[in-house]
């Protein structure tokens, strides 16, 4: 699989310690969820940040996707908590 840019935001970024990294997961990583499993093994910070799936949202090439989406062909994958913009 070609290299993928992975982006992290908010407390996920803080726990992992970086906002962006380039990764080349093996071919067995087929979905967003697979990628989360694979990324969690990279460090204690990754594991802590990515373990609670109910609190994680994903975007593939800047479009919201469910965690069971295939990642084939994606150039950029972002992980973040549920959004909290706007106002009251």
């Amino acid at each position, binding site marked *: 699989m070609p290299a993928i840019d992975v982006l992290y935001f*908010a407390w996920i970024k803080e726990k992992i310690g970086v906002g962006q990294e380039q990764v080349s997961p093996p071919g067995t990583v087929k979905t967003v969820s697979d990628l989360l499993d694979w990324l969690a093994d990279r460090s204690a910070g990754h594991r802590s940040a990515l373990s609670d799936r109910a609190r994680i949202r994903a975007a593939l090439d800047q479009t919201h996707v469910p965690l069971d989406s295939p990642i084939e062909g994606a150039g950029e994958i972002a992980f973040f908590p549920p959004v909290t913009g706007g*106002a009251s």
Partner: protein
Amino acid sequence: MIRVRQKPFDPGDEINAFCTHNANSGAIATFIGQVRDYVSSESGTGSVSELILEHYPGMTEKELARIADEAASRWSLDDTLVIHRFGPLTPSEAIVLVCTASAHRGDAFSACEFIMDWLKTSAPFWKKEVSPDGSEWVEARESDDHRAAEWNAK
């Protein structure tokens, strides 16, 4: 028009420019979100000294444009403006401004509220509140998901 910016903006000036640009639209609805000075968590008691808004450059603009397009497909609109800030903000500053122009006030109101509801649940912004107790990421609220979902039942 979609504008995502760090610098403060003047809501009154923006609204006046929007009205002038849509001088023949009988109905202009607007919403202004302001930074409150109290923390949003129910357990917290402190006052907010600063609000830090992180966002996802590129995706933010795309999502806001998608939401505005969706509003334009649901209602009869002459124009739409969304301004959203990011970076550090202080209490009472404007975070977000939405303006809609239409021949009919019902359309202007519905579209403006729809844009705010969808923005809350899909535009990639994250708020961190800084208070004397420290700083804390704001949790998303289920009630916001319900509000956004209700538009699909209408």
